């Protein structure tokens, strides 16, 4: 069951950028690609917990600002040769509005 929550307007997230959504289980980073797709990931790098929301976004990837791990936005997987994975959350855009569905697993970590 997907529980969609409205989190804001697409235009409030810069293209090739990201904004943070605060939750009791920690921050979630919501990314916007050049072609206006959105992705949501826990704002924690699998390496040493760096805030991915602060990284540079390129294509469907983000580079962690702390030590340059590159993370796939769609899967949360680190791009080889790095290893690790960040939790993803379903996100979508409808009529310029961004919706997020928080997956509980995030709260655990």
């Amino acid at each position, binding site marked *: 069951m997907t529980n969609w*929550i409205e989190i804001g307007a697409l235009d409030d997230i810069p293209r090739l950028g990201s904004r943070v959504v605060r939750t009791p*289980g920690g921050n979630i980073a919501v990314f916007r690609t050049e072609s206006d797709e959105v992705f949501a990931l826990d704002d924690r790098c699998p390496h040493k917990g760096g805030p991915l929301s602060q990284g*540079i976004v390129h294509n469907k990837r983000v580079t962690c600002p702390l*030590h340059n791990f*590159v993370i796939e936005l769609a899967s949360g997987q680190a791009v080889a040769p790095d290893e690790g994975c960040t939790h993803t959350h379903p996100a979508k855009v409808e009529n310029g509005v961004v919706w997020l569905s928080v997956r509980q697993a995030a709260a655990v970590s």
Partner: protein
Amino acid sequence: MLDKVTKQKLVVIGNGMAGIRTVEALLERAPDLYDITVFGSEPYGNYNRILLSPVLAGEKTVDDIMLNTVDWYEDNNITLRKGETISMIDRRTCEVVTDAGDRVPYDRLLIATGSNPIMLPLPGKDLQGVIGFRDIYDVDRMIKASTDYRNAVVIGGGLLGLEAANGLMKRGMNVTVVHLLDTLMERQLDPVAGGLLRKSLEERGMVFKMPAQTQAILGEERVTGVRFGDGTELAADLVVMAVGIRPNFELAKKAGLYCERGIVVSDTMQTYDGRIYAVGECVQHRRQTYGLVAPLFDQAKVCANHLAMKGFATYDGSVTSTKLKVTGIDLFSAGDFSPGPDKEEIVLQDANRGVYKRIILKDKKIVGAVLYGDTIDGPWYFQHLRDGTDVSHMRERLVFGAANLGEGGVSGQNSVAAMSDETEICGCNGVCKGAIVKAISEKKLFTLDDVRAHTKASSSCGSCTGLVEQVLAFTLGGDYSAAPKVKPLCKCTDHSHDDVRRVIVEQQLKTIPAVMRFMEWKTLNGCHSCRPALNYYLLATWPGEYRDDQQSRFINERVHANIQKDGTYSVVPRMWGGVTTPSELRAIADVAEKFNIPTVKVTGGQRIDLLGVKKEDLPAVWADLNDAGMVSGHAYAKGLRTVKTCVGSEWCRFGTQDSTGLGVRLEKFMWGSWTPAKVKLGVSGCPRNCAEATCKDVGVVCVDSGYEIHFAGAAGLHIKGTEFLTKVETEDETLEVIVALTQLYREEGWYLERMYKWCDRVGLEQIRKRVVDDVANRKALFARFAYSQQFAQTDPWAERASHGVDRNEFAPLAELELA
């Protein structure tokens, strides 16, 4: 752009290690200067000849040792004529003639024909199965023989002979090494070390006949045996002659170039005909010929510099060191170790561990070293040998090596060998030596980029790059001579920094997507390396026109604060010239308390750092600092950071000029400017240099009669004193020169290339010419800097704290109660 018609023609004879290293270095310095044609007798691209030994031993394949494939030549617009030999140089018409009779004209010619193995003039030397050890063709024949035959004789117990013998043995042959003298590798080893080496090779199954003179090679069509001076005979199906090499200079000599034991060249690697250069084993320089790659690479660098018309470098000869590439045997030798009345020796012999070390001293300096069994300190001794260090203070413990002397750490150039596995190499990413070594060996890494990708070492501030390279060199041994290619800006493109900068100007490209489209970027939006670089290049090229792309800025520059490891930020307000006031200090104290800022620290650049600020607090913190008259210190920027000053003539009894005032003036003029990498200034009021101006990017040392301007210093993991640029008489001139210098760096530096690296690459004289000697150019540079400053000098903090710029950046998009 220069096209093929107007470009000068450079012809290279010899597609080997020295020739191509020269071409690579030339492309780095002047990629478009020449239309280059390379002739090579061998039917391959360029390969790493050194590694023929591991290929023979079955530890590597021919593909593994290729340095430049045929594609590389194409990519760099070089015409490679492989499999073609030059048979004549016609100096009258400036043409070379191939063995097929084809004539090719040159404006400049580079001879890099290497050397040939010496084939002893013995009866039977032309029989089938008698070969030298020089190229892939020889190795192929040896490998073939090892499958068809059993008995091999190697004539020559030097480096090459032993490596050949080891390889053949590994391939299953019975190998006998015949040597004229009673010590193996007598040119590199003393009798004791030679004896130890012989013993361990014998344990592996190698047979020696020495001292022995070969008298004849026996056989009808193919070799069947060898006869010695004492009348004895030995059965052999393969004879490898490895008694030495002879510089290959026939071609040059026929063309009337002066030759002795090699082609005689000057300190600029030119032959007696100024249009003709020569490098590599074929040359003789100051009476020396060389047979190892390190000196040849030094020659290549000098030669390339000259060909690139940056003719300030000279070659002064090299000291060499040797390592035997037989897996499992550790042997190192360097310098001169013949005994003599004025020499002292320190010897350590530990038969149990199979260790032997002999260090030879003369006039308190190391002149030679032979190490067997434990060679870890080889590079360290070699460094001291080359530097001519006075080692008398560590004489007692010298033989135990670097680790025992507590040398190493920050400045210890060659100390990596002596470091323990736990030693941290990359401070930023916490990577220790053991992890790097492990990754290199297990994952078969070969280049700095590989190591960066796999371990993160040297991928951040980059100051440990030198150390990581040393770890690479030390772990790979002889393998790490792979030449650096003309470096693309990043993995998203094949174009170099210089190409990109040039095309931005030529094609009037004014946005990042436009550059990527025009230059056919391989990725959709680039990556974290190229986007910030492009953003900077566009900003520096089109001041006032280009709109800074925040999403292509590294986080620190996007939010104008420094991210810390826990995701909080640090804030450093500007303190002009390191001068502050009670009210500023009070405001800083108030801010720290109001926002619960956990750490307040004084920085090395004479200002105060507030660490641990939460991102959402940043605008409010800045607003308070702004209210007290303070602005951003750009402590996060690839831009002007600090101007460190001393109190100078205002207070100091030694002060000659108002160093503080000058520092403040420089900072007020230059703050806000973006540069390829960070720029730090220092101004000292007298040569006592309390502001440490001579290790800064730009430093001023005041003297009675004026101002000495220095630049290109560094004091990070690399420590380098500045270069003296010029001396001027007034503050105004000081400002003009420094600003012009910075502008030149802004226009030519590669992104993230510090000023000292830029100076290394471009050359001090070139820079001085354009900034000091050419006054009109200096003034033009100054004017361009001043123009761009009108768009740069707005306080980014005020914009964000009070004018709502980038408001979204600092607030969350949403706060969810329930997750």
